[in-house]
């Protein structure tokens, strides 16, 4: 057995448990009495400790063990939850996360003992207990500890431990004898595991591993196979051949968590030579051996049956969805193949339409068409399935935010809450992974600059507690994530002044800027509005990074601010990165694709429908004034000799904004595979990719979000 193969699982599961702890501790702060929450926390902490122990991360185990102690006291009602304690717990959780990070990068837990934290935890417990010592339980914890300490102390003399009654077969006998002859010291030992241990086999494995650092395990009883398969009671016996003394071995064994005690003695091979009176002796020896686990059980049962209960709980913990973890690269490869398939299908479609009805007999061509439609259905479904595999809820990314806001709230001494909705909204895995930082930045921004201090809030007649909201939802082919706060909003005058100071705009020009243009300054590199540089925000690597990160994902970000009442950042992200439904249009003889998701409707208008507002062309459509964008001019197409009287306008929508794109011709709807234009040529914001049409021709995709 090799531990490293479990490292990935350990990392994933630990992250899950940390998240669950974080969520539940948050919940606990709100509802300190909720038994379910406490039990959930306890379970998570316990698993965390167990896993750390299994993997041999002792420092992490130590810390989680002490955390668990605190949780236990909470569960038993000996300690009241208060925000001070929650703070300590979160600190600990951060430390555990740190361990996890270290493990991730180095496969080792690092050297940080976090003694300060552990001390804090224990001090807290002692303090709490000092107040109202519920002697029984407090004593219990110790007595368990004591049991650990004491029993090994006197077991040096244990003359009747189970290891003495191991029956050796011939091969084992030879092995033992040989070891003795080669000058190794022989020890027999019996390791007792705590009765509530969930992973006996894993513990046993760790014990073996610990022992193997010192010597060789000559004999297992039960057999190592049985132990591995957990076919043993609460103890197992070993015969060890070693150069070392037994004391250090014992210490190593006891360091494995959930080991109750170790009994050992030196042995000689002769002891295992069967004698006639053996059966009798065995009988005699069995009694104390059986008694020992019982005693252990009793001790455990004292904590209101916690052990048993907990074991039960663990066994019926929710069955996790049946999943397979797949390397994202493999998914990418699969996705590319589906893309190729779609391109191939499209070319079949285009052949069938160009040849359809010409020389084929009616019947054959009908069959051909049917097959192509069939193929189309299959490829579309296949594509959807592959896409779905890649989709994950943004939950994994956003669920760390409530905790972050809580921390910030305490750090900045501004009461605030985070309200989230739409955590279940799904996005492509790669997008979800990368959206965390920009969102975090926006939230920090809101917490730091947005929400005012309590005094200002009172003056402005707002509730004491600031409110930050994060909403996610799907809109067409986009996912929208809104981050808004009810804080001070953006002081456009102030931004304007800063912009002039920095020489970004002249004073005269500044007067004519719209609020939107002024807010855009915030997205310029190194434009920080923070009056003071805090470690939360204001280092000048701010919104510009947010913006470029989001744009790199094919999305964009929009700000609305109402000075004095709050600001709202709207992040728009493409749902998929690879294949979309698009409307193909023609501008002169060039073909362009427009994402179907952003198209609102298509209108036929006459030139006389076009009105002018501020010297810009608009149309008035069902109560909406929609600016007209002439694609031919925008795309530098060959000018037309004579303007058409009738125009085809594709009305596109981004959020609340509309625009009408004038095209020459509509070709039709098509599923297209988005391909990058490559770095060298992709220096404009109008085109956000290209696609290959059925006939092999390349069509460019118009980035509606950049136009509107």
């Amino acid at each position, binding site marked *: 057995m090799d531990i490293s193969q479990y490292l990935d699982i350990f990392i994933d599961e630990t992250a899950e448990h940390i998240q669950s702890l974080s969520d539940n501790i948050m919940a606990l702060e709100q509802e300190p009495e909720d038994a379910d929450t406490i039990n959930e926390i306890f379970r998570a902490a316990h698993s965390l400790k167990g896993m750390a122990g299994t993997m041999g991360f002792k420092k992490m185990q130590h810390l989680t063990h002490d955390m668990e102690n605190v949780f236990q006291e909470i569960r038993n009602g000996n300690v009241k939850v208060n925000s001070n304690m929650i703070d300590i717990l979160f600190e600990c959780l951060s430390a555990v996360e740190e361990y996890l990070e270290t493990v991730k990068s180095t496969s080792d837990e690092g050297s940080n003992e976090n003694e300060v934290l552990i001390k804090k935890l224990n001090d807290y417990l002692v303090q709490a207990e000092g107040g109202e010592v519920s002697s029984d339980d407090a004593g219990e914890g110790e007595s368990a500890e004591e049991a650990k300490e004491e029993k090994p102390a006197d077991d040096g003399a244990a003359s009747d431990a189970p290891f003495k009654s191991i029956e050796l077969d011939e091969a084992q006998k030879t092995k033992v004898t040989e070891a003795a002859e080669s000058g190794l010291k022989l020890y027999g030992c019996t390791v007792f595991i705590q009765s509530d241990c969930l992973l006996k086999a894993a513990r046993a494995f760790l014990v073996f591993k610990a022992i193997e650092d010192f010597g060789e395990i000559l004999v297992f009883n039960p057999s190592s196979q049985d132990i591995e398969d957990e076919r043993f009671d609460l103890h197992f016996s070993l015969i060890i051949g070693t150069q070392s003394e037994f004391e250090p071995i014992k210490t190593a064994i006891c360091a494995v968590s959930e080991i109750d005690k170790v009994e050992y003695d030196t042995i000689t091979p002769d002891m295992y030579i069967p004698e006639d009176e053996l059966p009798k002796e065995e009988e005699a020896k069995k009694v104390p051996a059986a008694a020992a686990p019982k005693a252990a059980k009793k001790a455990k049962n004292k904590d209101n049956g916690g052990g048993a209960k907990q074991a039960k709980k663990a066994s019926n913990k929710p069955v996790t969805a049946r999943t397979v973890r797949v390397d994202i690269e493999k998914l990418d490869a699969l996705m590319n193949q589906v893309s190729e398939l779609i391109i191939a299908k499209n070319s079949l479609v285009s052949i069938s339409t160009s040849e359809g009805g010409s020389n084929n007999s009616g019947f054959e061509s009908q069959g051909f068409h049917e097959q192509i439609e069939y193929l189309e259905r299959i490829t579309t479904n296949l594509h959807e399935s592959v896409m779905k595999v890649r989709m994950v809820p943004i939950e994994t990314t956003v669920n760390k935010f409530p905790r972050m806001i809580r921390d910030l709230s305490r750090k900045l001494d501004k009461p605030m809450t985070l309200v989230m909705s739409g955590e279940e909204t799904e996005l492509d895995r790669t997008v979800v992974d990368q959206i965390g930082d920009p969102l975090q930045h926006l939230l920090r921004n809101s917490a730091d600059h947005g929400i005012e201090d309590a005094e200002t809030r009172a003056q402005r007649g707002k509730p004491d507690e600031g409110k930050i909201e994060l909403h996610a939802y799907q809109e067409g082919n986009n996912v929208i994530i809104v981050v808004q706060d009810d804080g001070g909003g953006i002081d456009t005058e102030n931004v304007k002044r800063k912009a002039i100071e920095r020489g970004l705009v002249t004073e005269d020009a500044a007067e004519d800027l719209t609020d939107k243009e002024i807010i855009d300054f915030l997205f310029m590199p190194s434009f920080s509005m923070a009056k003071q540089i805090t470690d939360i925000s204001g280092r000048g690597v701010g919104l510009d990074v947010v913006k470029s990160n989001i744009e790199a994902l094919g999305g964009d970000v929009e700000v609305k601010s109402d000075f004095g009442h709050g600001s709202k950042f709207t992040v728009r992200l493409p749902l998929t990165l690879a294949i979309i439904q698009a409307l193909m249009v023609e501008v002169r003889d060039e073909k362009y694709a427009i994402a179907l998701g952003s198209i609102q409707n298509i209108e036929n208008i006459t030139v006389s429908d076009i009105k002018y507002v501020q010297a810009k062309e608009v149309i008035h459509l069902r109560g909406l004034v929609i600016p007209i964008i002439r694609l031919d001019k925008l795309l530098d*197409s060959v000018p037309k000799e004579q303007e058409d009287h009738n125009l085809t306008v594709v009305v596109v929508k981004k959020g609340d904004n509309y625009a009408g794109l004038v095209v020459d011709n509509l070709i039709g709807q098509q599923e297209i595979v988005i391909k990058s234009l*490559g770095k060298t040529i992709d*220096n404009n914001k109008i085109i956000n990719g290209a696609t290959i049409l059925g006939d092999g021709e390349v069509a460019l995709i118009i980035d509606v979000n950049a136009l509107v």
Partner: protein
Amino acid sequence: MAGNQMEIIDQEKVQYIVVKLGSEQYGLNISFVDNIVRMQKITRVPKAPHHYVGVINLRGEIVPVMSVRRKMGLEDDEYTNRTRIIILKLEVQGLIGVIVDEVKEVINLGEDDIDRNVQNANNRADANFINGIGKDGEELISIFEITSIVDAVETV
């Protein structure tokens, strides 16, 4: 074509693809060349740098195509049935197509055959793009400095 020369490949010699632009011959180091394709429909990319003619579909990949003539400030390409697109494979930029009037042959040139002293060939519009003049018998072949050709900066 130059089959006889192919047979005497010298270790120190480098293979060059000889192409024609107008009346002059240019050599491209073959190690950068991924492929040579016939002229095909190039999709114009609006707002792209002037010397980029557009993009083509190379077996499912979108490949930008540039005009060396535009880059060097020569008169615009005239596409004939000898026009070819040489697909270069570069580490930074990936695949890039370069339009040439004609592909002639592959030759081997040793360092001895190349005159690196081209600085005084001033006043030539292509001076920046040439890193040597190769001599293949009586023929003179300007050796392209590939990196400066595909450099995004417009020099003209």
